[in-house]
C-alpha cells in the first residue's frame, strides 16, 4: 500500500503516475546470442544471424541474463517465479527484424515487489507489479526519404520494471526512478546511464478530480533522459491535462515525447486503435525453470541495499537522514564513506568531509563514482581518514586541514607528510601561546579596555592577531582558553 501521508493536489485534481523503467542489463553478450553488447562498436558490428532475425536462426537464452534478472528482482523485493515463459510480441516495425519482439507476458520472471524511498522527509512505498525480460530492438537513423538501421542494439537484454500507478507527484516519480537506478547499480546489473539509454524511464500520467476513484485516461511519456526531466516532463503533462479537461477537451490515450529544450511534451502516436500484439509463448524457447538454490546463490551476492544501509548510518553512526540518503545512493560512495569512517573512527566527520568538501573537488577532476575506490582517485579513503585523524588528534586545526586537503589532490604525499614538510603542525605549547598572547594584549590597550567594558565581540580581533602571528597554527582551543583568562585578569 502507498503510505503517502500527504495528499498532493493540483487545482482540484490528483495526478496518478505509474512508471516503466527499462533497465539494460550489462551482460557481455546479448540475451539470445553470443553477440557483444559494447556501446561503441561500429554500425552493425555486434550482429549475427540471430540478432538480425535471419531466416532459420534461433534464439538461445543467455544464462547470465537470467542471473542478473534474479538479482535485480530480489533487490527490488520481488518474488522470483519458479517457471517463467518467453512470449512473442508481434508487431511490424523496421527496427524489429523478426517482426516480433521476444518478451515475457503472463509469466514474467519477477513479480510483486516493492521499493521504499523518502520524498520531502516522508517515506513513500511503491509496489512493483512485475519485472520482465525482453530483447531490445535496433535503432533507426532517418536520412531524407531513407532510413538506415543499426542492429547493434537488437537483442540487448532489458529488464522492464513496471510499477503500480501509485505515485502522485513529479517529485515522487523522480525519486522512484532514482531509487530503481540506485538498486540496479548496487547489484551491479546495469550501469544506470540515462544519457546512453541504459536506463529508460517511461512515465504513464493521468489526472482525475479529487475523490474520483476511476483512473483518468493515461498518457505515456517517453524520451526522458534525466531524473530532472522526469520531474519537469510530468509537471508539464499534469498541467497540460488539467488545462485540457478544464477546457472540456478529451484526453486521448497516446504516447508523447518530452522535448527538454522547450520543456513540453509533444504527441508521438495515439493508441486509440489499441494495437493487438497477439502474444503467444515463443516455441523456440523452453520455459525457464529456476531452482531455489540459484535464487539463494544470487541472494548471497547482493550487497546491503541503500535503504538498510541508510538506516544503519542513522542509527549506528548518528548521521543525519539527508546525509545518509546521499551517501547510500551509490554503492561505491557508501563503501568509500564506510572505509573513511572506520579508519578515522569518526563517521560523522567522514560524512561531512565527503559531502561538503570531497565530492565537489572530486567531480571537478571529471572522475565518476565508479573510480572512487580505484587508483584513479588521488584522495583515497585511507588518506582522507588520515586527515580527519590529524584534526581529531589536534595535530592540525580544521582550517589548516582544508589547506592540506586541497594539496592532497595534486601532492603524492600523505597528509601527515604534507603537514610536516610544510610546517603546519599545530602549536599547542601553552607557554609559547601564552607568551604571544601577553605580547598582543600589551600592545593593544584600547581593545583590552573595550573588552573589559563588555564589548566581548572584540575577542575576534585578538584571535585574528594571534593566528596571524602563528600563521594559523595555534591550537584554537588553547588560544581561546588563555585569551579569555588573560583578558579577565
Amino acid at each position: 500500500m502507498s503510505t503517502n501521508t500527504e495528499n498532493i493536489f493540483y487545482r482540484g485534481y490528483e495526478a496518478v503516475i505509474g512508471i516503466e523503467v527499462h533497465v539494460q542489463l550489462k551482460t557481455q553478450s546479448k540475451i539470445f546470442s553470443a553477440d557483444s553488447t559494447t556501446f561503441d562498436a561500429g554500425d552493425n558490428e555486434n550482429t549475427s544471424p540471430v540478432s538480425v532475425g535471419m531466416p532459420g536462426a534461433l534464439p538461445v537464452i543467455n544464462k547470465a541474463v537470467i542471473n542478473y534478472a534474479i538479482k535485480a528482482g530480489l533487490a527490488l523485493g520481488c518474488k522470483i517465479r519458479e517457471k517463467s515463459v518467453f512470449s512473442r510480441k508481434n508487431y511490424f516495425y523496421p527496427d524489429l527484424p523478426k517482426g516480433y519482439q521476444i518478451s515475457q507476458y503472463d509469466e514474467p520472471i519477477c513479480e510483486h515487489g516493492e521499493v521504499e524511498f523518502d520524498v520531502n522527509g516522508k517515506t513513500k512505498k511503491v509496489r512493483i507489479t512485475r519485472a520482465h525480460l525482453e530483447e531490445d530492438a535496433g535503432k533507426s537513423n532517418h536520412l531524407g526519404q531513407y532510413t538506415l538501421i543499426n542492429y547493434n542494439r537488437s537483442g540487448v537484454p532489458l529488464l522492464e520494471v513496471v510499477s503500480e500507478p501509485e505515485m502522485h507527484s513529479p517529485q515522487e516519480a523522480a525519486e522512484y526512478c532514482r531509487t530503481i537506478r540506485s538498486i540496479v547499480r548496487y547489484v551491479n546489473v546495469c550501469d544506470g546511464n540515462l544519457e546512453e539509454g541504459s536506463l529508460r524511464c517511461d512515465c504513464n500520467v493521468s489526472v482525475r478530480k479529487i475523490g474520483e476513484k476511476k483512473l483518468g485516461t493515461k498518457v505515456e511519456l517517453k524520451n526522458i533522459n534525466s531524473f530532472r526531466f522526469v520531474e519537469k516532463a510530468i509537471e508539464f503533462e499534469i498541467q497540460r491535462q488539467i488545462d485540457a479537461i478544464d477546457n472540456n477537451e478529451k484526453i486521448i490515450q497516446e504516447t508523447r515525447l518530452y522535448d527538454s529544450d522547450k520543456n513540453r511534451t509533444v504527441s508521438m502516436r495515439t493508441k486509440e486503435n489499441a494495437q493487438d500484439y497477439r502474444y503467444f509463448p515463443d516455441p523456440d524457447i523452453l520455459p525457464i525453470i529456476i531452482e531455489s538454490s540459484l535464487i539463494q546463490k544470487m541472494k548471497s551476492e547482493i550487497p546491503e541495499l541503500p535503504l538498510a544501509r541508510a538506516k544503519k548510518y542513522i542509527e549506528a553512526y548518528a548521521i543525519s537522514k539527508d546525509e545518509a540518503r546521499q551517501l547510500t545512493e551509490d554503492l561505491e560512495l557508501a563503501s568509500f564513506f564506510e572505509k573513511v569512517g572506520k579508519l578515522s573512527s569518526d563517521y560523522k566527520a567522514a560524512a561531512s568531509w565527503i559531502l561538503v568538501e570531497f565530492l565537489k573537488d572530486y567531480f571537478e577532476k571529471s572522475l565518476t563514482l565508479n573510480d572512487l575506490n580505484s587508483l584513479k582517485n588521488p584522495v583515497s579513503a585511507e588518506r582522507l581518514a588520515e586527515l580527519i585523524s590529524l584534526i581529531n588528534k589536534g595535530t592540525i586545526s580544521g582550517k589548516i586541514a582544508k589547506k592540506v586537503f586541497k594539496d592532497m589532490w595534486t601532492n603524492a604525499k600523505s597528509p601527515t607528510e604534507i603537514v610536516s614538510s610544510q610546517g603546519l603542525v599545530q602549536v599547542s605549547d601553552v607557554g609559547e601561546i601564552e607568551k604571544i598572547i601577553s605580547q598582543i594584549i600589551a600592545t593593544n590597550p584600547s581593545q583590552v579596555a573595550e573588552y573589559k567594558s563588555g564589548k566581548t565581540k572584540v575577542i575576534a580581533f585578538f584571535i585574528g592577531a594571534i593566528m596571524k602571528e602563528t600563521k594559523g597554527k595555534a591550537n584554537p582551543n588553547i588560544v581561546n582558553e588563555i585569551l579569555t583568562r588573560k583578558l579577565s585578569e
Partner: protein
Amino acid sequence: MDILNFSFTEAQAALKNKKISAKEMVQFYLNRIEKINPQLNAFLHIDQSALKQAEAVDQKIARGENVGLLAGIPFGIKDLLCVKNMPTTAASKMLKNFVPPYDATVVKKLKMADVIIMGKLNLDEFAMGSSNENSHFGSCKNPWNTDYVPGGSSGGSAAAQAARLVMGTIGTDTGGSIRQPSSFCGVVGIKPTYGRVSRYGIVAFASSLDQAGPMVSSVKDAALTLEVICGQDANDGTSSNKPVEDFSQKINTSVKGLKIAVMKEFHNSDLIDSDIRKTYESAIDSLKKLGAEIVEVSVPMTKYAVSMYYLISASEASSNLARYDGVKYGHRSDFKDLSSLSLDEFYSANRSEGFGKEVKRRIILGTFCLSSGYFDAYYKKASQVRRLLKNQFDDAFKKCDVILSPVTTTPAFKIGSRVYDPLRMYLNDVFTTSTNLAGLPGMSLPYGLSKDRLPIGVQLTAHHFQEQKLLNVAAALEETSLVKNEKPHVY
C-alpha cells in the same frame, strides 16, 4: 559396380577400396540430374561446387586421412535449410534472392561427415502444402507418373530420391511433409522425435512441430543419416541432450515378441481407400508372420489432430513469417517513390506480392487465431488438447512398441486435382499430424503399389526417442516390401 543402386555402405566400401572416386560418383549423379531433372523439376538449384567438394574428399582419401561417415555421398537438401553461399528460397518469391551466410546445423553436420551437397530441392512454399503445387518455381512431379504430385511439402526430396538423382536427401516434416511424399514416391522417410535434430538454420514454418529428417532409399541409409544429423545443438534451445545411438549398427530385424499396435481410430477410418488398406493389411500380416504380437490401442484425441494442427501451425507461421516484410528480408515491391508511402502501405505491397495464395491463407488464419478475443478459444484450446493428445500417446505406448498405420488415405493424386479444395487437401494429413503434435518419431516405409502403379507406404510411429524401434521394425518389413524391386517410370 552398380553406382545407381549403391547403398551408403556400398559406396563407402567402393571409395575406400579405390574402386571409384568421389568425383566419379558425383559426376555420375550430376549427369543424371542434368538428364532427368527437367522432367521432374525436383532441383531448384544445382550447385557448381559439387565436383570441388568431391575432389576434397578424394584428396583426403589419397592422403590416408580419416573421412566422415558419409564421405562422398551426393545429397540433395530441401530448399528450406540454409546452406552457406547457396540460394535458400523456401520456394517463395519472398526469398528468391536470399543467400544465407551460414549453414543450418543439419547441413554443417552433413558437411562434417564429408557429404557432397549437390543442390537444393523443390518444396511447397515455406513448406506449406501436401502436393508441391505451392512452389513459386513450379510443381515438382512424381517420377512414377509425372501427371501425379510427388506429395509435399518435401516433394522435391521425395522425387529426387525416388528417381535416384542423388543418393540421399534431407526433408522436413511439420505435419507429414517427410512421410507423405515418401509414401507417394516410394522412399524411406523418417521424422525424428521433436528435439532430436537441431532446427537451427531451417527456415521456420511452425517451430513447435518442425523437424528435419532423412528421405533415402533404404532403412539402413536412413539409420546412417540419422547418426550424422541427430544430437544436441547449442544453437537450438529445444534440441535434446539424449545421446545419439549407433542406429545402423544396432538394427535388429527380429520382431519376435514385439508389440505392434494398430490404432483403433486410424484402423477403422472410412477415409482409407482400398489400395491403401490392402498395403496396410499386408504389412500387419507380414509382421504377424515374423512373430510380432499385434495389439490394438486407442488415441481418441487424434480425431482433433487436423484441427489442432492447422490452428497451431498457422498461428506459429503467422509470427515466423512476419520477418518477410521487405525491410531486411523478403520481396520489395518496385516502389517509384518512398517518400509519400506510409509504413503500412509499404508492408502491404511487399507481402501481397511476395507470398503465394496458400501461405497468405495460413498467415490470415494464424493471425486470427492469435488475436485478442480469439486466442483462448483457438490457440490456447488447441494447445491444451495437444497436451491431452500427448498424454494419450504416452498411455498407448505403455501397451505397445510401435504403432502401424497408413500414411495417407489415398496414393498420390493428379496434379491440379485438389488445388481448388484446400480442406480436402488438408485431410491428406489426417494420419500424420498427430505425430508432430505429440513430438513423436514417425516413419514412412514403401510397402505396396496401387493398381495405377503408384507406391504406397506404411507409417510406423514410436514413443519419444525410440527411433531405433522404428528402424528395427522397418528393417524387418523392408525385406517383405512388395515395392522393393520396383523402379519408377522416370529413372
